[in-house]
């Protein structure tokens, strides 16, 4: 029963085939072991069943050949007898299958009446998945919207970066960390004014800041494993290392601390230091 069920596929083509074969098996079922060739021919037509049946069929053929040539040998005959038992079992099973195929055909007909195409089911699945679990259904939709940096000139030699705070909160980083990175990358210094805007020494354009910001996100925000931006920066007190902890996939990755590197002394400072 179970094997028959396993063998049958509720798709159209196979169903038709199974019908024809079921009739063939029904005719061959009452016939004794002599009709085994027909039976197996039917089997072959039917479909590729599980491996062992086809293998057995091959065995059967070879055994038939052998028995045809060495009919007098007992050993072979014994083997053949055992084979016959197997075949009997098979007939029983096939007879059962013959009954069940009719039942299943009816079931298939029912299915045919309210048959839903695979495409529709797939799209339905994805729409539901997007509603319930947007993280799983392609991260593109859930991309974080980072506001473009508002950069203005503050006087002649300073640049004002107005929305550091909001960008830092969107990225789930402390503003201090972001500011430290900005200063290290731009090779300058600066301060935060009364309205929590960042004042950077030097002239910078919006696109410059944007480029640096992009690199910051790449280095310190994006999870290297799943490319999610939903991460947290944690500092391990034991080894003083910073770790990105991804909230989407749960992975952690250590990141290098921000280093300023070499700073040349420019302008008036230069003569003082040297």
């Amino acid at each position, binding site marked *: 029963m179970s094997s028959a069920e396993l063998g049958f596929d509720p798709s159209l083509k196979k169903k038709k085939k199974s019908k024809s074969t079921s009739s063939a098996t029904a005719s061959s079922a009452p016939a004794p072991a002599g009709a085994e060739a027909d039976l197996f021919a039917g089997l072959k037509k039917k479909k590729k069943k599980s491996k062992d049946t086809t293998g057995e069929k091959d065995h059967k053929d070879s055994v038939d050949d052998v028995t045809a040539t060495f009919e007098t040998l007992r050993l072979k005959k014994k083997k053949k007898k055992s084979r016959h038992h197997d075949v009997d079992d098979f007939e029983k099973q096939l007879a059962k299958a013959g009954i069940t195929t009719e039942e299943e055909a009816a079931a298939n007909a029912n299915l045919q009446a309210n048959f839903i195409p695979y495409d529709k089911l797939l799209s339905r699945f994805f729409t539901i998945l997007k509603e319930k679990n947007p993280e799983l259904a392609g991260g593109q939709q859930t991309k974080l919207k980072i506001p473009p940096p508002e950069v203005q000139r503050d006087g002649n030699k300073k640049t004002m970066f107005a929305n550091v705070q909001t960008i830092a909160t969107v990225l789930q980083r402390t503003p201090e960390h972001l500011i430290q990175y900005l200063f*290290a*990358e*731009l*090779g*300058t210094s600066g301060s935060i004014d009364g309205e929590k805007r960042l004042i950077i020494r*030097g*002239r*910078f*354009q919006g696109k*410059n*800041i944007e*480029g*640096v910001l992009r690199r910051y996100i790449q280095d310190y925000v994006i999870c290297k494993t799943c490319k999610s931006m939903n991460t947290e920066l944690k500092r391990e007190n034991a080894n003083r290392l910073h770790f990105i902890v991804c909230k989407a996939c749960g992975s952690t990755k250590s990141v290098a601390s921000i280093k300023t*590197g*070499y*700073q*040349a002394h*420019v*302008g008036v400072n230069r003569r003082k230091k040297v």
Partner: protein
Amino acid sequence: MSNIENLKSFDPFADTGDAETQPTNYIHIRIQQRNGRKTLTTVQGVPDEYDLKKVVKVLKKDFACNGNIVKDEELGQVIQLQGDQRLKVVEFLVSQLGLKKKNIKVHGF
């Protein structure tokens, strides 16, 4: 017992000395703003096997800019070049000195 020894020939957990595990010595190329629209390019961490004096000489000639070597206590010798030469320096380091691009880090805007 002695022929069991050959089982020890390969230890999968031994340190292979791969560069992946060791801290790679990055070459940092930075830019600094000077007065006006002038800038300064610094190249930090060029390996010692290269003669920096000669390197600077070629760089100066190639990029048509001035430059010099500054000795820093922590960071060793640093090349300073006038103007924004970052991309040109990267190209030079990769093509002429045969350094790997992944070991070069360009900073700045």
